[in-house]
């Protein structure tokens, strides 16, 4: 079997941003799909896909490790966000092809499934403590036993820090009152806080209500500081979504900067790299909770990883937008707080191409600006 073509499908829908998918074709009539991380300047992604495709056409798609090395090592300079996002999607598409060729779900190519169902946590939202508590209650009623929220109110940058802390405490108190003590509630500071000491203060005020973990408590660039912070932080530290390849994740692990590893399959290097990171985590008695804000193809690839990985903890989940749901043939969604094991062959999902012809690419996507009260630039 040989790769004949790798194409990018890119579409935009109002309110849903861009969707960037990859489809790898073979001379055996089998094709595989993967999702590109939505990095912002999304027009860069098809360029990278084409660059890799020039090297991959004619090669055996089931030689996944070799094809990965061909792309990664061929670039020589460390590949940044757009390139790794493209490589990640291509890698996932090759696993999909290999699974289809062998008529097996992808997890069976990873040593088989180690679990019968996959626990999910749900991202909850709310501008005020009351709104956040309401969303928490709603999702616990739907069967979720694990939730994640922002610890801070959306306008925390405009608040005095002590007021932001008081508000954070009020948010968690409201959630605890709404769902009780038995639900796991994690928090995501989203790499938006620059000073490590402030996160420590934030976590300290939340400890009264027993947070499950604090995610991306500080920026990701300095893994040494993450290690120093973890020495003092009282709850588990979750991070990793912004790190690239096993090499950066190893740096984090070596600095003892993480309890719960959160690689992003669509940017870290695909399923091949996810597995290697899980093995490194296993060697250090760490667990993995895949980051998952992308679309349904990313979710399905994560579910295969989750099914096969012993040191998997929990899968991030959120509401898929109509364009995302329409863009694929099917997608597993959690029921009673768990995903079912995905069915194959391959990833067990395909792209609905018409959705992309209806929704052409409308331009690059910006996260928007975040500024401090003095108009200096904040992190987002």
């Amino acid at each position, binding site marked *: 079997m040989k790769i004949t073509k790798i194409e990018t499908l890119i579409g935009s829908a109002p309110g849903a941003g861009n969707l960037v998918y990859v489809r790898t074709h073979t001379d055996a009539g089998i094709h595989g799909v993967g999702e590109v991380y939505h990095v912002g300047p999304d027009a860069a992604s098809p360029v990278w896909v084409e660059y890799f495709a020039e090297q991959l056409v004619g090669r055996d798609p089931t*030689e996944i*490790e070799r094809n990965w*090395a061909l792309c990664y090592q061929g670039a020589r300079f460390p590949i940044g966000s757009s390139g790794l996002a493209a490589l990640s999607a291509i890698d996932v598409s090759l696993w999909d092809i*290999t699974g289809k060729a*062998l008529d097996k779900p992808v997890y069976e190519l990873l*040593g088989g499934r180690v679990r019968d169902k996959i626990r999910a946590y749900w991202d909850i939202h709310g501008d005020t403590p009351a709104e956040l508590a309401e969303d928490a209650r709603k999702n616990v009623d739907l069967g979720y036993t694990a939730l994640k929220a922002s610890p801070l109110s959306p306008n925390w940058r405009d608040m005095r820090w002590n007021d932001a802390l008081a508000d954070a405490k009020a948010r968690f108190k409201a959630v605890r009152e709404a769902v009780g003590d038995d639900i796991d509630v994690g928090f995501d500071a989203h790499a938006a806080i620059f000073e490590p000491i402030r996160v420590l203060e934030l976590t300290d005020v939340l400890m009264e209500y027993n947070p499950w973990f604090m995610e991306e408590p500080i920026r990701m660039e300095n893994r040494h500081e993450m290690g120093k912070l973890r020495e003092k932080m009282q709850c588990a530290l979750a991070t990793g979504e912004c790190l690239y390849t*096993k090499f950066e994740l190893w740096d984090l692990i070596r600095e003892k900067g993480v309890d719960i590893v959160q690689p992003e399959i669509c940017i870290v290097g695909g399923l091949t790299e996810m597995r*290697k990171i899980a093995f490194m985590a296993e*060697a250090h008695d760490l667990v993995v909770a895949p980051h998952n804000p992308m679309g349904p193809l990313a979710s399905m690839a994560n579910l295969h990883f989750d099914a096969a990985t012993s040191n998997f903890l929990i899968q991030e989940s959120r509401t898929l937008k109509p364009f995302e749901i329409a863009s694929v043939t099917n997608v597993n969604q959690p029921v009673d707080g768990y995903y079912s094991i995905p069915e194959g062959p391959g990833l067990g999902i395909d792209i609905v191409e018409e959705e992309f012809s209806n929704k052409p690419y409308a331009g690059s996507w910006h996260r928007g600006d975040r500024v401090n009260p003095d108009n200096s630039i904040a992190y987002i």
Partner: protein
Amino acid sequence: MKITDIKTFHANDGQRNNIFLEIETDEGITGVGEAYSIGPDSSVISMIDEMKIWFIGQDPGRIEWLIRRAKNTMRFPLGQVAWSAISGIDLALWDIAGKAARVPVYSLLGGKTRDRVRVYHGIYGDSPAKVGEHAVQLMDEGYSAFKTSPLPSNWREIPWRQVLREADERMAAIRDAIGDSPDLAVDVHVAIRETTLSLELARVITPYRLMFIEEPSRAEFIESAAELKREFRVALATGENLYGLHRYTELLNADAVDIIQPDMLCCGGLLEAKKIAAVAEAHYVTVAPHNPLGLLSTAAGVHHSASINNFAILEWHGDHKKKKSEFINESWVPVNGYFELPTEPGLGMTLNHEAIAANPPAQWDRGFATYADGSPGFL
């Protein structure tokens, strides 16, 4: 598919014993594996016989689950017996998975990363000249990488200064015979306890441009290897005495190694080896699998080597010419120092039951090494 039975086989190959196993399934697919022959071999057979009820009735495709479950139920850290048993079972499960999917095992481990697998050949002889002669003869067969002991066989009984002089003469004689070009490694075989002595030896033989020095320190204390690596101007290879992902990670995190040498028959098997290789890759460390046992060990080594990007070279002892080759129906012979990749489903080897039955196991141990004063040495 369900596992219906696990059968063990024990055969003497004229030098030591080989331990094989077969996992049978209700769909008629049988997987073959091999476990490490650790010396008191029957303990490995007993272990497999006793643990097989954990596997019977289960889906053989759930390799991670089956192996994880077996390890977890044993609770205490596994030793050489349990790691060997688990490794043999892992190999047989991958053989089944490959046969069920009708692809070679490497195709289930991320696919092949290379078209052929390079080997180095062990070289032997009573004198350095004989060792050199053996290498030259193997060069005619196409081999281009070799490994030998740097020490005279009676080194424990003679003064250390004499050991170093003879080691120097030995390496000079071998290089004279084979020339500068072939890759040449040496194996100290965890026999030297003192790191100062190993370092002195390394300084004497490093000028002979070695591919690596293997096991220059004892395996129990990883800091010894770390200390040596800080001083070495030559690659340090080690690991065959370690079991499982965690011990290898300790070695790697200690910056104690350049080339790791997991043995597929006791490191935990092919899945564990894949995990170990991934951690090694993040440390910029390559993998040269240890491979002294039966032919199935070579098969597993070839599949593993073919499936990782950070492979260095595979150990090989010309086993196709030895009695142990009778135990396997297939014959794999390196061409120009490389194994071509197998294309048959699974591991690509099957057991010759008649030959195995005709060669019952014999009591085997390594014997004992002693220093000149009669105290026990390492071997």
